[in-house]
């Protein structure tokens, strides 16, 4: 069973000691050749393990592993539309709702405050009817009521010559 000093040395090496305790252990290492040797041994062991792992990684062939992963991805069936929609709604639903609310607010704030001019709105600036004729101007309200009126010029010829 490792002594408390050994455990402290190991924890010091791993950087797990509190600052005060680490300072005490460091002083001990500097003054004790045994402890210094243990630390040196730990460093050598760590370096050997690191080198071995690095070489093993260099020699390893990961291509078959990646190929298997790729095949697995390709075999995966796409999510049904409902699930995909649900996923996107959970992920982006709040953002979309907020953006829609902003757009609607802008439209409501900027909308025209008065109606566009009536479609058949006519201003007769001058009217010249022929001799023996009478001209009358009147308007007929359409389905839009007072905001939409169609203007009619009614010309009545008083002579029989007007008949075709």
């Amino acid at each position, binding site marked *: 069973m490792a002594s408390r000093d050994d455990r402290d040395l190991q924890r010091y090496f791993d950087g797990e000691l509190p600052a005060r305790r680490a300072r005490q252990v460091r002083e001990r290492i500097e003054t004790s050749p045994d402890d210094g040797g243990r630390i040196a041994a730990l460093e050598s062991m760590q370096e050997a393990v690191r080198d071995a792992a690095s070489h093993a990684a260099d020699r390893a062939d990961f291509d078959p592993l990646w190929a298997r992963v790729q095949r697995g991805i390709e075999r995966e069936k796409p999510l049904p539309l409902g699930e995909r929609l649900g996923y996107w709604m959970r992920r982006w639903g709040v953002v979309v709702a907020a953006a829609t609310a902003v757009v609607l607010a802008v439209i409501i704030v900027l909308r025209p405050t008065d109606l566009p001019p009536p479609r058949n709105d006519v201003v007769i600036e001058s009217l010249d009817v022929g001799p023996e004729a009478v001209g009358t101007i009147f308007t007929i309200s*359409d389905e839009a009521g007072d905001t939409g009126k169609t203007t009619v010029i009614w*010309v009545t010829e008083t002579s029989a010559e007007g008949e075709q």
Partner: protein
Amino acid sequence: MPRNGLLSCALLLMSSQPALAAPAPKPQAPRKSVVAQVDTVSCTIRSLHGSSAPGGVDKRLRFLRKQLSRPPFSAYKTIKLLDAKQLAVPQKATRQIKLPTGKILKLTFREKLLERRGQVRLRLHLSITPPKKTKFLPGTVYTIADRGTLLVAGDRYKDGTLVVGITCQHK
């Protein structure tokens, strides 16, 4: 030198003074090749026949159904679309068509008017007269909203009345 000769010389000298005193003409900036854009309205002239024969309002006049179902047009049991002719009228130009009554309808596109928010109104001159005569409607000037319709009625035709609808749209 005779007196008339002296007078002529004096007049010639006076007339040449402005030319002598005029500054050298400024170099003109290169003229841009501007293609004049002529405003044009596309108009539809509809000839409607209102009569007392039963039949109702022509389905092709659906857009005027409300107006034609009100007095005085409601007195007609039938309102039929006789024809609809298209006229493209450039600004300041006059185009004409012959109506079923034989009268000539002339339409002049005077100008385009811009109202608030870019809404367009059109100023037009309209006349409906017998050929080479100034009877019936020698001329009226009116402004109308783009795509608006003006109705001109009262011309007797067959057993009823001819109603002319003039609808113009700015191109």
